[in-house]
């Protein structure tokens, strides 16, 4: 989230799209309800009328996978109607920047320049900006130059008129118009802010990242970023998934979103040169210029005294990615299926249920030598070897199931979607043999290190030299690790006039150094634990509620970065530093300093009191080398500098409704069909129905933690499929019937819920039906008939977004049929 949960109450219009917070983030609805009580409009856009729609003032149905067409229509409405926030767009985005001549989008082919059909990749250099002789981006502040970003964007979305959009989305034109008007009216004008809430409904598509980019462009054009009640707010799918992403869960980043080294960066100098951006743009802070300080401090936290200037701070000991290769979730199971992976830790994961094309994943698990699962309950992954249709005697994989403590049985921090790191204590000790994850990791690491000490082995140095002194019992390990993440001075240093001694905790990341005199396990969290006292030094423990104000609650827990509650807040003020919304100021320049939230940089406003440009100022989007938000850019995504509507890999349309030859995303990840990945052909008559997947509020994730709980399980006891009355009548299905749902990958049975909340839509002149199933089921629910408790991912395709490799769980094709009494 750029903003945070409580801030939702400040919105004047709430657009919920690709999310179902009433069911999946119910506590968020307290703040949505407060916004409504103040008069805010709530708009919900979804294939299905959900418990969120029930609370909305305006509901718009759409076809699964047509979000970019829907949002492209809104961009069209904003640009053609000139509803933009003029000052914001001109000064805080790259609208005035000129694009180099190499760039083009071919509306007949549906491709951007730079496409290589041999490799199915784009060369993003074809999307570069036009530079002057000093290397500075050329600009046209009148926004009239045909090659300025504003005009490029306008030209691109000129094709997204209401008729075209309605044909692609199936949303009735009058509802499209009503949504566009309501969101723009709620957002534009003094004292107004519109927010957007999204979740997996946007990311789980082969155009997932571009879905979010399209909405970000809308928020920039309307001037909604950096304001209270504005922003782009991702409702994260687990209580601490923000924390795990921050701390390097994903393969392509280290903690703090430092890039993972690649094989062509053999020294730390190579690394720093590749990943430290430079700029010649005037007044750009270019914060990532500090990359070498954060990387060196990270290496010092990993290897302590063994990391020295002489050995490149042990940079050699970090694993390197093969360039351009993916190590994403899909790749792991593709490699496993092909027999190139011998072992797997499934730690707090249930891939036998939660992965796309789950039957192939279960086959892949059977090709492992060993599998370790760590979970509070047994899972379908731990028991895949005796799942439906599996002969245990034919599975050679050795499985170890380790019982883990649940959240309330261990101490540590949890970072919520609003980037608030909140410290939790151990309420009760774990039962039986269950252990906290940290204790399991420690036992494992001690054993592995002992083996390396005794026997040696390949690449032993990182194991032998890892700084690992958190479990000596002198303080709780979670606290010791939190301090390591914050970081220490590793020598006596003078920073900004203050003397620090070796062993002092670093006050915040502006004090981090690239010469090895500081450590920090994650620069973003530097400042979360700046003093040694376990209570007062740990700012994540703070619990002071805000007495008055806009809900920032700056003394409650701690938010990264630097306790900033609303990101890009210097874009929420005018050039003189005065808030666009004086009634709900996030920050404000009082003539000598900023007051309010931690500003995105403490430099003075862009112009002084007399309206003269201020040389000491800096542009508001400090993480971008250009200093402004990018409506267009070559460095963001692999599949284009602008969003374009492409069909899901499986869709009922043989042609792209935008009228070009490129049907699906040309660079989407599609696992090879010969490796057990069948995909239905476009418009395949064998699979005429669109299918999507989702969650219910009563279960969690793959259901491993909620199905064993009888109180929760009885609220939603069985896999169900929701379908519209017309489709149901065609197949002679009524609510409560058993229905067979089949895709190109597999089939399952589910209980029918026939509901008007799903409506047939008219797409490109034809009627399409959509059905949906929840993700939470598997055969391990106690006492339930196994035939009905199938995992919905037996149906989903192993295709994914080219940037993130998130699978397309949200749009694929199926056939349905009633299951007769005799089970046929």
């Amino acid at each position, binding site marked *: 989230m750029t903003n945070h949960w409580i801030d939702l109450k400040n919105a004047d219009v709430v657009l919920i799209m690709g999310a179902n917070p009433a069911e999946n983030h*119910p506590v968020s609805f307290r703040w949505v309800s407060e916004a409504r009580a103040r008069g805010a409009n709530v708009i919900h856009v979804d294939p299905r009328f959900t418990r*969120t729609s029930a609370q909305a003032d305006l*509901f718009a149905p759409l076809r699964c996978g047509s979000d970019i067409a829907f949002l492209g229509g809104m961009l069209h409405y904003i640009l053609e109607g000139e509803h933009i926030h003029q000052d914001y767009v001109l000064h805080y985005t790259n609208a005035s920047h000129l694009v180099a001549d190499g760039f083009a989008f071919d509306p007949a082919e549906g491709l951007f320049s730079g496409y290589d059909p041999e490799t199915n990749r784009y060369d993003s250099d074809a999307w570069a900006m036009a530079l002057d002789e000093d290397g500075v981006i050329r600009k046209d502040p009148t926004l009239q130059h045909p090659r300025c970003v504003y005009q490029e964007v306008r030209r691109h979305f000129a094709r997204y008129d209401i008729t075209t959009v309605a044909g692609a989305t199936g949303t009735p034109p009058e509802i499209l118009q009503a949504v566009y008007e309501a969101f723009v009216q709620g957002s534009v004008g003094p004292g107004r802010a519109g927010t957007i809430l999204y979740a997996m409904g946007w990311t789980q598509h082969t155009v997932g990242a571009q879905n979010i980019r399209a909405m970000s462009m809308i928020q920039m054009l309307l001037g909604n970023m950096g304001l209270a009640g504005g922003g782009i707010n991702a409702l994260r799918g687990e209580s601490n998934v923000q924390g795990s992403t921050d701390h390097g869960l994903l393969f392509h980043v280290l903690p703090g979103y430092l890039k993972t080294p690649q094989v062509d960066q053999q020294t730390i100098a190579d690394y720093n040169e590749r990943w430290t951006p430079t700029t010649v743009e005037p007044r750009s802070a270019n914060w990532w210029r500090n990359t070498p300080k954060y990387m060196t401090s990270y290496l010092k936290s990993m290897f302590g005294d063994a990391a020295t200037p002489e050995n490149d701070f042990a940079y050699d000991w970090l694993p390197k990615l093969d360039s351009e290769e993916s190590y994403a979730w899909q790749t792991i199971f593709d490699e496993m299926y092909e027999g190139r992976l011998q072992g797997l830790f499934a730690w707090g994961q249930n891939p036998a249920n939660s992965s796309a094309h789950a039957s192939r994943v279960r086959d892949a698990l059977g090709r492992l030598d060993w599998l370790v699962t760590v979970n509070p309950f047994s899972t379908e992954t731990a028991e895949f070897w005796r799942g439906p249709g599996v002969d245990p005697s034919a599975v050679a994989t050795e499985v170890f199931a380790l019982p883990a403590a649940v959240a309330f049985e261990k101490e540590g921090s949890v970072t919520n979607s609003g980037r608030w790191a909140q410290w939790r204590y151990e309420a009760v000790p774990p039962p039986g043999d269950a252990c906290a994850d940290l204790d399991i990791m420690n036992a494992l690491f001690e054993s592995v290190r002992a083996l390396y000490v005794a026997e040696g082995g390949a690449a032993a140095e990182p194991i032998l030299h890892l700084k690992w002194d958190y479990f000596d019992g002198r303080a709780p390990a979670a606290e010791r690790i939190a301090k390591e993440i914050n970081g220490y001075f590793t020598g006596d240093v003078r920073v900004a006039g203050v003397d620090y001694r070796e062993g002092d905790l670093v006050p915040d990341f502006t004090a981090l150094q690239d010469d090895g005199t500081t450590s920090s396990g994650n620069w973003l969290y530097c400042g979360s634990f700046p003093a040694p006292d376990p209570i007062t030094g740990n700012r994540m423990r703070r619990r002071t509620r805000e007495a008055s104000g806009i809900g920032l609650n700056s003394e409650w827990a701690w938010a990264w970065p630097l306790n900033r509650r609303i990101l890009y807040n210097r874009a929420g003020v005018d050039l003189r530093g005065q808030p666009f919304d004086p009634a709900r100021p996030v920050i404000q320049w009082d003539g000598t300093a900023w007051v309010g939230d931690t500003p995105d940089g403490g430099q003075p406003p862009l112009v002084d009191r007399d309206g003269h440009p201020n040389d000491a100022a800096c542009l508001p989007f400090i993480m971008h080398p250009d200093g402004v938000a990018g409506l267009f850019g070559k460095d963001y995504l692999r599949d284009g500098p602008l969003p374009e509507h492409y069909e899901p890999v499986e869709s009922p349309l043989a042609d792209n409704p935008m009228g070009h030859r490129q049907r699906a995303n040309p660079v989407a990840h599609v696992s090879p069909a010969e490796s057990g990945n069948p995909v239905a052909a476009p418009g395949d008559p064998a699979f005429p129905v669109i299918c999507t997947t989702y969650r219910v509020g009563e279960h969690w994730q793959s259901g491993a933690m909620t199905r064993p709980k009888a109180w929760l399980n009885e*609220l*939603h006891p069985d896999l169900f499929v929701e379908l519209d009355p017309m489709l149901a009548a065609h197949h002679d299905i009524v*609510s409560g019937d058993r229905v067979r749902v089949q895709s190109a990958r597999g089939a399952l049975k589910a209980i029918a819920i026939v509901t008007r909340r799903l409506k047939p839509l008219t797409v490109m002149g034809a009627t399409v039906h959509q059905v949906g199933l929840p993700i939470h089921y598997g055969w391990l629910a106690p006492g*339930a008939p196994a035939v009905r408790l199938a995992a919905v991912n037996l149906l989903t395709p192993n295709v994914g977004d080219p940037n993130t490799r998130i699978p397309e769980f949200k749009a694929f094709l199926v056939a349905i049929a009633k299951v007769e009494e005799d089970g046929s």
Partner: protein
Amino acid sequence: MSHGGRATLFDASRCIACRSCQVACKQWNGLGAESPTPENRGGYEHPHDLSATQWLLIHFREGERADGSLFWHFCRSSCRHCVDAPCRQKARDKRAVVVDEETGAVLFTEHSRDEDFAAILRACPYHIPRRGPGGALFKCTMCVDRLHRGEQPACDKACPTGANVHGPRDEILALARERLSALRLRYPNAAALDLHETRLILLLADRESRYKTGVER
């Protein structure tokens, strides 16, 4: 007339049917699941009815209005703790149904096992009482045990959106009126049901017939 005591407001305009109240009720009162092998009956409303171990149920009703817009309304079914409770009047043994003086909660006791269950059920305007295996009658207790310790009822505590609000009856009636007048600006059909007769006041945002209240009238 306020009759003192306590009351709960169920504000359907804020209910998202998360059913935290339904689970919290079972958890606090130590009530088990209805079945070891629960089944989906083709909808969202599970378990399917109140019982001696199911004292609170959220009902779902969906439909399409004449203008084509959809609705999906959620409503709470549990004892309304009538100010002048017909079940108490109907009981032959006055010890079977008692009223807690401090809160006004209507409570069934173990003496209810000798009552004519059918007569008491008929007397209840809201079809609430259920008979347990031992014969005694069961329903919501307003969490009097919690109230006497200065805590809020479990349903109120678990509610994330302010749809269940419990407090002194005077304050709850005032809140109900305040929310009703605000709601009517957006929803002309909004209504507060049985404001004067009960201690569980239902505030609806739409016509009563579009809600499943557990009582068809």
